[in-house]
């Protein structure tokens, strides 16, 4: 089985796995302090420390998702949700 068959739509997938995943993981990490049940200091530090795990999980999911539209939709949903939390956290929403 060739790599093209293993990973359909390689250009879209690489774009999602690099830029898309990084942006999504940063947004999740930034917004996490809004909902994690820790003290202010820990709620900032723990998501940052967990950033490599957050990134890796999304990275592997994007690479392994067979349908690219689902991968993009997932990235957009996660990013949108966490961007909303960030904006409400700073009082914009």
């Amino acid at each position, binding site marked *: *089985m060739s*790599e093209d068959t*293993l*990973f359909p739509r390689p250009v879209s997938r690489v774009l999602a796995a690099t830029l898309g995943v*990084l942006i999504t993981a*940063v947004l999740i*990490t*930034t*917004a996490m*302090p*809004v909902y994690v049940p*820790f*003290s*202010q*200091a*820990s*709620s*900032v*530090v*723990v*998501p*940052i*420390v967990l*950033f*490599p795990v957050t*990134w*890796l999980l999304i*990275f*592997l999911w994007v*690479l*392994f998702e067979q349908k690219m539209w689902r991968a993009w939709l997932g990235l957009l949903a996660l990013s949108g949700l966490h961007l909303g939390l*960030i904006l409400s*956290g*700073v009082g914009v929403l």
Partner: protein
Amino acid sequence: MQRDTTKRFYAVHSWVGAITAVLIFIIAFTGAVSVFGRPEIKTWAHEVSHVPAELDPLRIEQVLREDAATVPEAYLDNIQVLMPGVRRRPVLSVQFDREVETADGRTEHHIIRFDHDPKTYELVDRLEGEPREVFENEPKDLADFIITFHADLHLGDPIGLLLTGLLGLTLFASIVTGVITHRKVLKEAFTFRPFRSLRLLFTDSHKVLGVWGLVFNSAIAFTGAFLGLAVVLLLPAAAYVSFEGDLDKMVETYLPLNEPQKSGIPAELKIAEVLSAVDQPENGPIVSAQLLTGTDQAGVAHVYTLAGDGIGGETHRYQLNGTVLESVTSQFSQLGGAAGPILDAMFPIHFGNFGGTVVKLIWFVLGLGTALLAVSGSMIWVERRVHGSSGSLSVASYRRISRFTVGACCGVVLATVTLFHLQLFVLPQVATTQTWLMGTFFGSWALAIVWSMLRTNDYQTTRELLGLTGAAAALVPIANGFVTGNHLLNVFSGGHWVVAGVDLGLLLLGAALVVIALKLPSQRPLRKSENRQSASPSSGLSGDLAYPEASTS
């Protein structure tokens, strides 16, 4: 289905590794050297610190007062005394810091720093300006150069830190996908057949290095990603949400300075009593001391030491009348909860600067293992494409990739060793140290890459570059003996133990590289089954490096 999943993991492992291998090698190798950067290589680099100076608190207090008498009063509320030969400074430095309000309402720091000979206490330099400006203008040495190169590839903040942070992430991804792909971890940890064939030597090496270095590599990748990305990306983003965009407020939350309230009653500057109190066998060596409102009776001193029995450095707070306020075993422990211990562990785990020389040696060896893991994986990837059925580029293209890998990886080792000679013969005589360091390092590295690209036989090129590097490394201790008079044979009378340690390390490393260069084959060994015409002496490694479930049986 499960086989397809494993194939996907292997493809991710293979491609992520192939794309990042050279950069991971460079970061891992310079990281391994950086473990001994401060203070060992820094001490080696400066003759003035070859023999450690005894801590003389009374003399240091006298120097502090003499320097303080020459600066405006506004600079006396925040004074730092940086000890020689412990971390960053080869000399004793007294630094006076003042906050200045700029035209646009911001505050910035302005410092005046006095550098003193660590033994005679004579003033050797006086620098003044913004901290960044002072740092950029002070002479650099090879330790500074290598550590900065490891941290940001000399691309600076934010691009360099972002790049090294992302490389930490990709290394983490390679490790996880590698473990999932090679699930027979226990078997592969003990499968090493160096004399059967070259192909088994390289595939087994990659797996053995991966398995035995698994915990270390994971920790390094994790902490490296944190250290690279946190400062430039994640902390500013977190400050935006959790601290209303105020980065200074966040820093104050995590690293509270605990500046004392002035009493208005003047006091004489003093530090000797506090230094004597901290300079005890149970504490690590004193790195620096900070006096806050030192000319007021309410003034306090923070004395920072290297790790004693714990994993991180310690901070001791004293009232300047000698009363102990607190001794904390870490910078962040006062935060409480999970955050403190996690942050405190990041730097020591990444740099191995806890537990003394033994831990540093272990970190150095494991760091070299990470570098070799990356390059062996890259060459396996090339080999599968040059002598196997994988890949869509021409054989000539893969050979070019292989030649570049050899030149870039052997070249960075050669360039690093070249800096030791530069430090001995050139840097003490020139003012533009950074220019010389950059020119020599990148110049010799570029020459190695060009040399490798022009050659057709990678095996021969590898031997030549490793042999040259080994000879250059082994010559450093001899050159050091001629230039400074401190060498391995007079270490008992001279007392320059750290210098002798670095010299011995270079001698052993040089000898090992020369032996490896002599033992390596001068061309690609052929297997009987291989088509001899297709196996011209050129690229990478040989062998059955196919999909792992089918290999090494």
